């Protein structure tokens, strides 16, 4: 937790020597609190004060990186309990567990299926992130499967094995890919800590509950294994919600470093709906990594969509550049549709225009990311604004028919817009879903 200016002031020499460039120590403290100046500007700081101040400037939940390159997963560094307080920063990783007892062919099929789980929604590419290989057989088989998975997919890896002997044999081949070791428990913590340090790999702390987390995280960090992820085991959903909330609260509100790590959860439900409802719960409530067993498209689509929703910045609605977009081979005869620059509005309209297979122009008006009705109510989607956008985008020059199609929900502005734009106004459907049949009958 960040210290206040006054908290910092108490740790400073209070001599007002001005060597930092500020008139008083208090002024320097205030700037430090705002992160407007760096600590080393004060030459007279005691070592104790220095270490306290440095610790307070660390993020309360550590940022952990798994994997390498473009597909690496970054989780943690969260700062709030509720997304409206700021935002949730690093979308939780979604992954699948593959056991080494499965046949090679079956594993390859799964990998193929997983690699096709890609969806584009409102201009963002949604993908899964991880594959966890679970060791149930001997070291040789585990190594084979880890190799198979890492060669046949680009996902970040989790090694689910708590036998330090086996891990020692597997790690040299895959350490460069920065896999997550799952994990360390009370029995193996010293050996796993050594391996994590040697191979610079992040480690999952497998505790029984909340009580034994601190001992394990301290044991690992004292050995130099500092990139940690927490897993409190398979439990009922309500017990999980309680633990997840406690861990986040202890890290953020009590600045308890032992809890300042992202959390991994393996879903154990048998029913495919139960599986995703459980996963959905943890997407909303603070999970850093969620591992699933089944891999149906409809399951993953719904979870990735929820993740996109929950991790959207509440202060900044997803927006697109307000301009004239050409869809398909649009000509000067093609219809001209108007919508807002709120991503969800634009991409919903775009999807339906594309589905209609009729080339068209879409003018996205700058409504500061508000949707049609909200923008209309807030006077960001008015005849004046639309005319302004038409002019800026030279939209009237792009078509020869002088007709504008406006969303059905703002039909009320037709007359006014007709007058101000000099175009003929056609009222389109209220819902984007009506666009294909509307365009066909135009």
């Amino acid at each position, binding site marked *: 937790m960040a210290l206040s200016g006054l908290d910092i002031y108490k740790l400073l020499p209070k001599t007002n020597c001005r060597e930092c460039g500020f008139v008083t120590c208090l002024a320097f403290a205030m700037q430090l609190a705002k992160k407007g100046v760096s600590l080393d500007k004060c030459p007279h700081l005691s070592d104790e004060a220095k270490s306290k101040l440095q610790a307070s400037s660390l993020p309360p939940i550590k940022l952990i990186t798994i994997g390498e390159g473009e597909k690496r997963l970054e989780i943690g560094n969260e700062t709030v309990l509720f997304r409206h307080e700021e935002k949730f920063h690093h979308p939780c990783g979604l992954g699948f567990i593959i056991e080494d007892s499965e046949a090679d062919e079956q594993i390859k099929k799964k990998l193929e299926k997983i690699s096709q789980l890609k969806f584009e929604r409102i201009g963002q590419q949604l993908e899964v992130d991880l594959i966890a290989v679970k060791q149930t057989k001997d070291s040789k088989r585990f190594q084979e499967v880890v190799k198979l998975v890492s060669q046949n997919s680009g996902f970040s890896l989790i090694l689910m094995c708590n036998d330090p002997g086996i891990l020692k044999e597997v790690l040299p081949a895959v350490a460069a890919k920065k896999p997550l070791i799952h994990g360390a428990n009370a029995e193996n913590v010293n050996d796993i800590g050594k391996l994590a340090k040697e191979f610079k790999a992040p480690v999952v702390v497998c505790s029984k509950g909340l009580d034994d987390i601190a001992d394990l995280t301290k044991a690992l960090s004292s050995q130099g294994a500092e990139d940690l992820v927490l897993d409190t085991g398979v439990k009922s*959903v309500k017990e999980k919600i309680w633990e997840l909330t406690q861990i986040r609260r202890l890290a953020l509100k009590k600045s308890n470093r032992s809890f300042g790590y992202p959390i991994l959860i393996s879903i154990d439900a048998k029913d495919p709906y139960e599986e*995703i409802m459980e996963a959905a719960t943890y997407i909303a409530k603070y999970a850093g990594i969620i591992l699933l067993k089944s891999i149906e498209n409809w399951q993953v689509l719904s979870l990735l969509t*929820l993740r996109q929703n929950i991790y959207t910045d509440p202060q900044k609605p997803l927006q697109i550049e307000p301009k004239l977009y050409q869809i398909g081979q649009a000509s000067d005869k093609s219809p001209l549709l108007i919508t807002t620059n709120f991503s969800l509005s634009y991409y919903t309209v775009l999807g339906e225009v594309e589905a209609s297979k009729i080339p068209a122009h879409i003018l996205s008006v700058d409504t500061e990311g508000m949707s049609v009705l909200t923008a209309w109510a807030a006077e960001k989607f008015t005849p004046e604004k639309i005319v302004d956008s038409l002019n800026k985008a030279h939209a009237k020059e792009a078509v020869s028919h002088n007709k504008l199609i406006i969303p059905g929900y703002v039909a009320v502005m037709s007359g006014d817009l007709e007058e101000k734009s000099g175009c003929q106004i056609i009222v389109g459907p209220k819902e984007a879903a009506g666009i294909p049949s509307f365009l066909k009958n135009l």
Partner: protein
Amino acid sequence: MAQELMLEKWSSAISVVNIGATKEEGGSRSKVIKVGGQATLPFLFPEGSIPNKPVIAFEIWDSAPMDWPDTLKQPFADVLNDPLKWAKKCVDDFKAELLCLKLQGAHPDSGDKKPDDEAELVERILKTVDVPLVILGCGDDAKDNLVLPACSEAAKGECCLIGSAVQDNYKTLVAAVLADGHNIVAESPIDINIAKQLNILISDMGLSVERIVIDPTIGALGYGLEYAYSIMERARLAALSGDKMMACPFICKVGQEAWRAKEAKAKMTEFPAWGPEAERGIAWEAITATALIQSGADILVMRHPAAIEKVNKYIDNLMTNDKIPMSK
């Protein structure tokens, strides 16, 4: 060593709304559904009491829905034209505890049914089934002001939940609800300030805030779900910290929104990468409900019986009596 936990001390709780009246209470329902009463955030049992579970209301219509996808029509295919049979099927076959009658057919653009006919339908539904009833108007203010008072009178004494009162149109409904002893849905457009303002206006007319259920206006998964999610969290935090005008249970129209989503409706032939639409539609409704349950939903108005079954099981698991060990 036992880890020291971090418990919030909330100063207030959500109000309890009773829906339905039994014979003793002057109605004819077989039981009363209680919603609300939480003294903490969703499912943080060790921190405060959570006396009532979230409850699902099966949505039925006064007229056959035209734009429902096949997946959604299929379970009700034989009864969609007959609201009475539809209501009975929900209760008998799908064990509905609560019904939500949507008077869509009263809308001037989709049937323009007469207030008297709608009132008669309400009366007959109350005779056909004995579960408590939510009644929702068609959304056309002028028409709702004729239809809802008639329905309210027809259901007098049954302690229904009737909606929706909105900022520009609440007086007629509040007066009817007051006269006939019902509860009211106060609907606000994803706006916490309007939600509070509307509750103040309604309680100024003499209807106690303990008889209001807030409809925060939700978006489906992928279609603005996160806005309602955060509005509900904010409202809950305010309520638990003592804001009485925010301390009402939430009703969320999950089915209506989820089944508008393309991802719920589109056939697999159109979008092969999305998987079969039967499972996908149910998942879309169930996941929308799940997220809203986690932000504080008390009544979920839902449509597909399979989604309802899954969500009910999820709720039951959350509400089992076994204690969460505070430390171990």
